[in-house]
């Protein structure tokens, strides 16, 4: 029998993940959506494994690899997002692109003569 339900569930999970990344603006929720996508992949590996004759259980082993890499990614991601939170007191990603676009010229065009107490004056 061809396992239809797990494949459909996996595709749905992946779709929900993609939707979450595209719609959400909270960095932690973005990270969770990405995790959802990776878990959809895990489900697909395990399901495909049962329907493929040949190398025994290789799909399950791939799942273990994906789980480990997802954990590593979360570790790095949360560290980066935590620094971002300390900086802005929020994890909304809305302003990220805009700030980068507008801050740069403003920073560079700022009057040189004024001696600022803090060379990193752009923060907050």
């Amino acid at each position, binding site marked *: 029998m061809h396992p239809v339900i797990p494949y459909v569930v996996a595709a749905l999970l*992946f779709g929900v993940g993609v939707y979450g990344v595209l719609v959400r603006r909270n960095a932690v929720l973005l990270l969770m959506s990405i995790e959802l996508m990776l878990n959809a*992949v895990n489900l697909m590996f395990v399901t495909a494994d049962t329907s493929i004759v040949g190398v025994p259980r290789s799909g399950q082993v791939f799942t273990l690899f994906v789980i480990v890499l997802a954990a590593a990614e979360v570790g790095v991601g949360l560290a980066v997002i935590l620094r971002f939170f300390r900086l802005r007191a929020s994890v909304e990603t809305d302003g990220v692109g805009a700030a980068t676009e507008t801050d740069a010229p403003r920073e560079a065009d700022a009057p040189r003569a004024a001696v600022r107490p803090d060379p*990193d004056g752009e923060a907050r």
Partner: protein
Amino acid sequence: MNPVLAADITLPHINYGAIAPILILLGMACVGVLAEAFLPRTLRYPVQVLVSLVAQVAGLATIIGLALSNYAKKPTLTAGDALAVDGPGLFLQGAVLVLGIVATLLIAERSVERGGAFVAQAAVTAGSEADAEQARRQPSQTEIFPLSLFALGGMMLFVSANDLLTMFVALEVFSLPLYLMCALARRRRLLSQEAAVKYFLLGAFSSAFFVYGIAMLYGFAGSVKFHDIAVAAISSGKSDLLMFIGLAMLAIGLLFKAAAVPFHVWTPDVYQGAPTPVTALMASCTKVAAFGGILRIFYVAFLDSRWDWRPVIGVIAVLTMVIGAILAVTQTDIKRLLAYSSIANAGYVLTGVLAMQKDGISSSLFYLVTYGFTVLAAFGLVTLVRDQDGEATHLSRWAGLGRKAPVLAGVFTFLMLSFAGIPLTSGFTGKFAVFSAALGGGQTTLVIFGVLSSVLLAFPYLRVVVLMYLQEPAADAPTVAVPGALTSAALAIGAIVTLLLGVWPSVLLDVANSAAQFVG
């Protein structure tokens, strides 16, 4: 566990000699981490620089040894067919290391900015008093060296991976350190940390697509080895749909790393926000690694289905060249300008890749190396133009630099001419190689768009040159720092290689030609 199954498993044979370069890099990266933990603060910097350079030089020597001892002619698969040691693999590994050494010289520089270009304590909140204090006097963190070794080791693994799972592991091994390295700038930390968040979120998103593509291809071929996928593409009676969805997903992941156009939006922000030496590393080494992966997937796993996917990737190549060139024209920041130019250059390499014959491989390999050296030297020069806030990257601040610093302006002009593809520079020979390979492969349309876009792209480069020589410097114009020994070495290597490969390209082109045979 089922005893019969357990008995069936035989450990794969691993040819340690053939994968020694990767092992050296990753092993020395671990040594770097230990040194960071156990050495006193004052000793860390010299030890880390030494470990980093020794690892890369030893890795490079091993690669040259392997290439001379016929691994390039008689390619082998090792570690249960997970790794391929063949001509293109060795060439790309060597390219990653050669460019990595030059980038490490830029990273290790500490005299241009007092204490180095990296933050002393990343945990200090940007903008606070403690942050101003550390920006003024404390020396950089030295974690950047083991991180860059891990990234380079991951890139070497990536270009020699022979199955999709190994490729995914390698992708993460080289991406994760890069995300962190982006956040470590000493000045403008807000910009730098935003760049890291952006790069991380988009990078993780694209690698999720990559691994979804792997699952599709596993479902299609019943295996993730490139050879099995190639066989299944010809012989299996299944519908090709699964394979093409899988290929599209894989391509999204790879083209993201290579910064091709629909997947390029992260590039300018990240290149601008990251510390300039790290940007140099990303623009040269990451590009080599990404195109190494693209070449291997297209030429080994999907060669026989090329008539179906080549037009799609061709459209992406055209978009990359044209949009990269058009947006480069509108830039007012030198780092963003170089970022858009690197996007357009990704399009030129893609043109060479799509030739889909031996010339295509060798010319792409050649182009990657020529571009890498030029872009390293260009970013090296960007680190030197400074004012009291750090690097002065806005183009208006570069006005009149030709009078204040004739040597810097001269070298930068030469590099810009190389980017614009003027003869006697490596930019010209590289473009000539990829375009003639693409013509040979019947991709005339791509070449027409390529030539048109490189004419367009010459405008922003020459505008910088005009700005430097023909405009009056402002009263508060930035100063040009005297480069330290390390930066001088990196700049000299970059400029000399740009000239050398422009007048005498056959040195490298012959090597690339003899290396251009993938193991199936």
